[in-house]
Structures are given as C-alpha cells and as structure tokens.
C-alpha cells in the first residue's frame, strides 16, 4: 500500500488515499477511476450532492461514466382503465434486476459513440430488466414506464458530453466529470464505472465503490426509528402533544383580550 501512495504524492492527502484504495486497473490498458469525495455523506443538510469522478483512459478513447446501485427486485402497481372510463390501480407488476439509481454521462454525444454505447444508456436498461409478474394490459411497456417513474424522482438521469477530456501524459488521457447524486438516494453501497470506448467498441473499464452513509442527526434518528420503534413512536407523540400545548399557551397569553 505504501508503494502505491508514494506514486501519487502530487495529489492531496484525501484524494491520494481514495485513489490508492479505489483505483482498479482493468485490462492491460490501465484505466483508472477515483471519486471526490470518496463517499456520499448524508447529514441534516443533505440535498443531493455533486460527485466528481476523474481518472485516465488510453489516449484517443472516449469515456462513458455511470453511477449505479446493486440491481434489486421491485413491485409496482399498474394503472389501467376500468370499464373504459376510470383510471385505477388494476394490478401488480414485479420486475427483477432494477438498479435503485442509474446516472450516466459521456465525453461526446451518444450518437457519435457508435452502437456499443447503447447498452450503457438508460434505454439499455430495458434489456437488463426482467419482468417477473407481467402487466394485465398487454400494451403496457413496463420498462418504459419504469424509466419514466424513476426519472421523475431524479433517480435515473442521462446526460451527454458532460465528461471533460484533459491532458495526455505518457499515452494516457485524463478525464473528469461531475455527476449530481439525487437527494432521494438511499444509504448503501453504490459503484461508479468508467468505460473507455474506441472506434465504436468498448476497449476497457474500471470501477470504484462509493458508499452513501447517513451521519449526525439523520443517522441517530434512523437508528432510533428502526431499532426501537415503540420508544420512537411514544417520543414522537409526546413531543407533538407538548409542542401543541406550548403553542396553545403562547397564543393564549398573546391574545389576552379575547
């Protein structure tokens, strides 16, 4: 580990540590990736956060970056028309292999990057998502509606040409981009991946883990709510009653003329 850190002396201490831990060389090409900050810290003021991703790819490559969570199962309600008139929840849809979050950006507009890039785009998730319990309505495009739903929450986002390519040193080109981590992110383990593309095909990739962790007051509250629900409920009730009374008393003394 020490030998790794010495190689990166030029970097600031934090980035240096992050780089040494997270740099994962892939293929012989030596693609690197690192994030600043190394993890997403969710405190009381968290409202989404910028995550800067940087690293190197072989000279002449384009870069696609994506931020994803582990794929999971999802159960959703299907809306459909009842009696040809009323829009209702008409059934349940179960899908597998849906990442909780999916953010993607690239160094050039997607259409200039060839066919290989398609699987990294939002629409590429269509192939990954498996429908386990199908919709009642045969016309319903589940993957399309799911993408719309997630995009509405900001959990899925696709932008292009947001990755900036920098200097070339020893045949390696540096890149950097800032992804906006959505405020609705759940705490947990995520990963960011850099994919190098050359002449329309993928030439290599590297990934780095990113943790989203609660801290401070939100962490305390979350632990209390999940570890001791009864205490939490009673506390919430008592504080509500007390605050209600307190405000009542304040108003009573102010509006004395009544």
């Amino acid at each position, binding site marked *: 580990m020490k030998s790794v850190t010495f190689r990166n002396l030029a970097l600031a201490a934090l980035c240096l540590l992050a780089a040494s831990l997270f740099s994962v060389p892939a293929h012989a090409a030596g693609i690197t990736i690192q994030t600043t900050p190394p993890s997403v810290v969710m405190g009381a003021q968290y409202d989404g956060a910028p995550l800067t991703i940087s690293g190197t790819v072989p000279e002449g490559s384009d870069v696609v970056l994506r931020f994803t969570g582990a794929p999971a199962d999802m159960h959703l309600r299907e809306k459909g028309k009842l009696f040809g008139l009323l829009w209702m929840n008409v059934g349940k849809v179960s899908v597998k292999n849906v990442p909780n979050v999916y953010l993607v950006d690239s160094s050039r507009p997607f259409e200039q990057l060839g066919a290989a890039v398609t699987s990294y785009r939002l629409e590429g998730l269509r192939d990954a998502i498996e429908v386990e319990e199908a919709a009642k309505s045969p016309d319903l495009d589940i993957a399309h509606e799911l993408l719309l739903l997630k995009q509405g929450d900001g959990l899925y986002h696709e932008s292009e040409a947001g990755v900036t390519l920098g200097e070339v040193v020893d045949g390696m080109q540096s890149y950097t981009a800032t992804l906006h981590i959505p405020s609705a992110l759940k705490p947990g383990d995520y990963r960011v991946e850099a994919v190098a593309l050359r002449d329309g095909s993928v030439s290599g990739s590297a990934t780095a883990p990113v943790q989203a962790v609660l801290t401070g007051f939100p962490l305390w*509250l979350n632990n209390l709510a999940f570890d001791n629900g009864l205490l939490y409920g009673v506390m919430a009730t008592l504080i509500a*009653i007390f605050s209600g009374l307190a405000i009542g008393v304040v108003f009573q003394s102010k509006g004395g003329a009544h």
Partner: protein
Amino acid sequence: MSLDLSLYLPIAGNSVNCLAILGLGGLVGLLSGIFGVGGGFLMTPLLIMLGIPPTVAAASDSNQIVGASTSGTFAHFKLGNVDFKMGLLLLVGGVAGGSLGVQIIKILRALGNADFLISITYVLMLGFVGGYMFLESLQAMRKSSAPKVEEAPKQESRYARAIGKLPFQMDFPRSGVRLSLLMPLLLGVLVGVLAAIMGVGGGFIMVPVMVYLLRMPMHVVVGTSLFQILFTCVNVTIMQSVQNHTVDFVLALLLLIGSSIGAQVGTKVGKKLGGEQLKICLATLVLAVMVKMLYDLLARPDVLLAYMGGH
C-alpha cells in the same frame, strides 16, 4: 441561494425545503382550526407531491395531527367547546369501527379490486357529504334572510321521534342535546369503518355526522371532533412507528410548527364566522377535493406504474 433551507429527512429518504413544509402545515392547520377536521385528506396528497413516499406521508401526517389537534382542542376547551362525554363515546365507537374497517379492507384486498372500491367510496362520500352540507347551508342562509316560517320542527319530527325511542337516553349538557347512548357509539363505529377503509382520520365525515345526526351545535362539534381525532392519531402514530417505521418525526415537527400556528388562527377565524358560513366553506372544500379525485380517476396518468404503498 444565500440561505440553505433544505433539510434531509432520513425516514422519508429525501430532502425537503423547510419553508414549503412550514407553509403547507400552516395552510392545513388553518383549515383544521376553522373546521375541526384533521386535514389528513389534504395534507397527505400534498406531501406526496413534494416527493415524500406515500406511506411516510400518511404516517407522519398522523403524527403531526396529534400536535395540531392538541393545540386545537386546547383552544376550544378554553372556549368551552369540547363535549368530553360525547367525544369519548364517539371515540370508543371509532376504535371498534376502525378495527373492523381494517379487517374489511384486508378481505377486500384479498378479493382484488380494493383500490377501486376505496376510490369510489371516497368520491361518493365526499360528493354526498359536501353536496348535502352545501345545499342545506344555502337553504338555511336564504331562510334566515327571508321572513321566518315555522316549518323546521315538522321536518325533523320523524327522525327525532325515531331516535327518541332508543333505549339508554342521556343528557349531553355541553352540546345541549338528549340522546340515546347508542347513537354516538354506533355512529362512531360507522365513521371508524369508513375512516379505516379510506385511510384517513375521518374528521370530515365525523363533523357532518355530529351536526346532522347528533344535532350538536357547530362550535361544539369542532372542538369535540378535534378531541376525538387527537386520540385516533396518537394510536396511529405509535402503531405505524412500531410496525412500519414510516413516521418521520422531523417532517411531522416542521408540519406541526406551521399547523399549530395555523390552527390557533383558524379557531379564532372560525369563531368570527357564523355557523352556516362555516358549513358552506367546509362543504366547498370537501367538494373541491371530490372534484380533484374524480379528475384523477378520469384523466390518463403521466406514468402508468406507481410505487407500492399509499392507497
């Protein structure tokens, strides 16, 4: 953005703007203070629109209503507007009805199509209650401006005679009525069942029930309704915290600060408005929510999939 007003809510799993939540609380609290309804049927959909998951919105709203109705009950108690005897009887009926309603909804869900029944119940109840109150108040307001005609007692007599025959008659001095003990108990059960099916506190059904079926004066109705809602929501808050972990206490506290202040103002506004004006305002509000729900049923949603939870 000179001042960062965003706040991260760990249970809801999203961040919100403090001012938006305070304002929302204030608005709903104002209505709650004026009409004696918990405002759950307004607050929950608005919270969902701000990006709070439906289950967290509903549970945190119950927590908020605990505070708001404490504040409201306190204000009405000072004005002598709470009929504790009636409130307790309605509460006992309401708890029994609520448990029954939860079982009914379980059976309906097992049969499928529960959601359809819930929505239709909503629209019909809101339409019926709102429409009836609106017309009734309109007539009363016309009548009071016209020369007085002695016809009201004749209309009421059949219903009055019927409930007069029920056993266990007792006086409710605060409301100034004499009724069978069974009336508030049974009506409490009825409201409890409907409230459980619809997933709301039931204030907007309870108020018309007290006015039209228990013949209580409007101002006592409001105070008593708040008193009854307080207990219902304490129960829901604790149950939700223990079973589903969906109460976001920070969200509730923010809503509470807004709504407690709103409720105090609302109580004073309500006292200035006449009983008939009060009824017609509540009727309009109920009808507006009904129209919104009907619209949602008829218009094509933007996205044809929805997250589980809520109703």
